[in-house]
């Protein structure tokens, strides 16, 4: 009976073991929270990508429709709060990005550029799209067909 009692008393965990266990749980929780935060970040990025795609499509549709710069300005102002700046470019300042559209209605060209809050380029394109010359391999394949 006495021996059993002694054994029962010796079953406790040391403070070092307890601290290590809690630290490990803490590390796991911190990792889990960082995964959640990372997923929030990924989702924000995907939202930005969707917004960019939508705005680029709208800009192109308006550009293909418009005959003059005035028409283009009226049309894109229906798609968002675009402002014409002193350089004659159309600028949209969003929550996480700034879109700049440069048009030339004489040559019927358009340049679209989107940058994030740190002025890093997110997406850009020129319209009409640049023609990529065929490489020798590609042209030979075409001839073969």
């Amino acid at each position: 009976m006495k021996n059993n009692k002694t054994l029962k008393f010796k079953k406790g965990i040391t403070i070092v073991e307890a601290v290590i266990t809690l630290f490990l749980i803490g590390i796991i929780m911190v990792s889990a929270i960082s995964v959640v935060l990372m997923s929030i970040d990924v989702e924000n990025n995907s939202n930005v990508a969707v917004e960019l795609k939508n705005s680029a499509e709208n800009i192109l549709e308006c550009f293909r429709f418009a005959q003059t710069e005035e028409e283009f300005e009226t049309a894109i102002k229906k798609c968002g709060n675009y402002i014409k700046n002193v350089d004659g470019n159309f600028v949209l300042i969003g929550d996480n990005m700034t879109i700049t559209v440069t048009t030339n209605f004489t040559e019927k060209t358009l340049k679209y550029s989107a940058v994030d809050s740190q002025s890093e380029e997110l997406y850009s394109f020129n319209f009409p799209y640049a023609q990529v010359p065929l490489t020798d391999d590609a042209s030979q394949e075409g001839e073969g067909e």
Partner: protein
Amino acid sequence: MKRFKHNFKSAKTGATLSEMCVVIALVAIVSVSVVTFASLSSEVTKISASKEMATERVEFIEDLIEGWVENAIVNNATDLKVQDNKIVAKIEEDDINLYFLNGNLKAKFSAENESSFDCKEIKEIRFEEMRNEKDLIFFCTVTYELESANNKKVEKTNTFCINPRLDDIV
């Protein structure tokens, strides 16, 4: 090394006060982390599900409107325009239209073919048009609500353009 025993009543063999404080502090930190993780992950899931549903619904509406306009052009519709927040046209003598009413997008493709699509998540759809000598463009502004942090709802709008071109369709 002192033992951290189950019998806390034993002052001689139990943990010291400072050891207990360390353990309690760590337990508190871990508990807070668990609660934060649980609430954060449920919030993130809720918000992303709401965004996904809204995005899908807006894409569906865009496709439906494009389909309606294409159908109108393919069937040689005339008088295609926006009137009283409806896109309307005429196929021969029949009026066709597309409009949003009480959470439903109603589309009349022809005299016989009329459909109603449930869009409860959408609050409003506003149609506008712009035309010049050569072309016509429709602007559709969709307003919907998204779940936000702390059970709040934020209103969002999404505008898309539809440029009905016969060349692109035929």
